[in-house]
């Protein structure tokens, strides 16, 4: 079930919503770097939470390629597939 991209995306949105002010609406198109008011370290710490949640490691170069919530979800799905 977690392997489903939509579920991963929904989970990321749910976790992010707890990190940012209620006034910020988080959607699949939300930019993680510019759209949430989180600094670079806070974003990396959030990525770490996702790594624990999905039991994968997301290398920093993969994080750097990701712009939106949707892209992050796709990256996690791909890493989960690779991890088997």
């Amino acid at each position, binding site marked *: 079930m977690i392997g489903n991209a939509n579920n991963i995306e929904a989970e990321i949105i749910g976790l992010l919503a707890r990190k940012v002010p209620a006034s910020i609406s988080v959607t699949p198109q939300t930019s993680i770097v510019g759209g949430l008011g989180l600094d670079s370290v806070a974003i990396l710490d959030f990525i770490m939470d996702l790594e624990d949640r999905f039991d994968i*490691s997301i290398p920093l170069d993969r994080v750097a390629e990701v712009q939106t919530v949707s892209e992050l979800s796709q990256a996690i799905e791909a890493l989960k597939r690779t991890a088997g």
Partner: protein
Amino acid sequence: MALFSKFGDVRTALDLLASDGRSPFDVRFDRIISATEAVLESRPCLLFGTNNYLGLTFDETCIAAAAKSVHENGTGTTGSRIANGTYCDHALLERRIAEFYGKRAAMIFTTGYQANLGLISTIAGREDQLLIDADSHASIYDACKLSTAEVIRFRHNDPEDLARRLQRLKDRPGNRIIVTEGIFSMLGDSAPLKEIVAVKRELGATLVVDEAHSLGTRGKKGRGVCEEAGVENDVDFVVGTFSKSLGAIGGFAVSDVPDFDLLRILCRPYMFTASLPPAVVGSVTAALSRLSTDASLGARVRLNSAKLYRALALAGFELGPEPNAIIAIKMPDTGTAVRFWNRLIDRGVYANLALPPATPGSLSLIRCSVSAAHTEAQIDTALSVIVSVGRELRVLDSDPEEAPVLRTGSLLT
């Protein structure tokens, strides 16, 4: 200018920081009087934010060695270590550092930043994986950017988390390289090296420890947290700096790994920059000798650190987790931190202002560093100023009438 329009947010943040008084990024000392005193804005100022842990910047033997070197060998080498920039004194300093650590080989770099940048980016190849502590210094993060290896962060000072991340890599080709620090530069906490070494042994990895802030301040012989934890034989590379306890500038890496010398022609931040100038090599060699032969330096910085840490904790400040030469005072928010920092300077105490994203957990900190050269009176004065500003800005809520007597001298007796 369109080119700089992407920095608009930075300009806004910088202007906001400076609007409370002086710019935290543009402090100019009129004169440095000693390892612990300066003149700033035409007023005397106590230095509690300089990383000058052993107070050797004005040590007579170090100054004499620097002067002798500059007279004998000139102001600069004007070349790289692999061209014309290696003098007998560079080689001598490398031998001395290797002897100090009891390791086979040492390399010196032009800055501590370059030591991390060079060593880590070179030893980690395309098939390898770097596992770095999440709170690592910027030089370690930048080394990761320069490296072609995959980079994974593990939770700060969490060996179990490190083990989980290593386990996930178990079927992958390549070498795992763990990078951590003896003492972390923002909160002054130290790494659980015994436990990290146990993980390394169990799951197989190379271990790099940056002892920038622990050289001279920890360990009986001043070799840092690796020495204190008794794990030196399990640490494959120790990295450090000359710009803190040794009072100058430069960096180094030591190791027993065979073929370590190959790094001299593989490591770009070592090869493509000018080598350390003779005066620096001279003073660092003398400072290392002072550290090796005078155990009281390390003992004094630890005693002074413990005094200030305990007194600040007793006053009610929220501090980093352990008493080291770096003492971080947690501020409730960035605005208070900036005001606090300005008022300390107004009253003649210089400490560092540390703000997110340079800090872990988005903390705003007043970061003090303690020196072996601080006198008890200087520590008492700084303490009194810090507590007084803490009360004014309501970082401390205790009533001054009821507050305990905060003379540091009474705390250890």
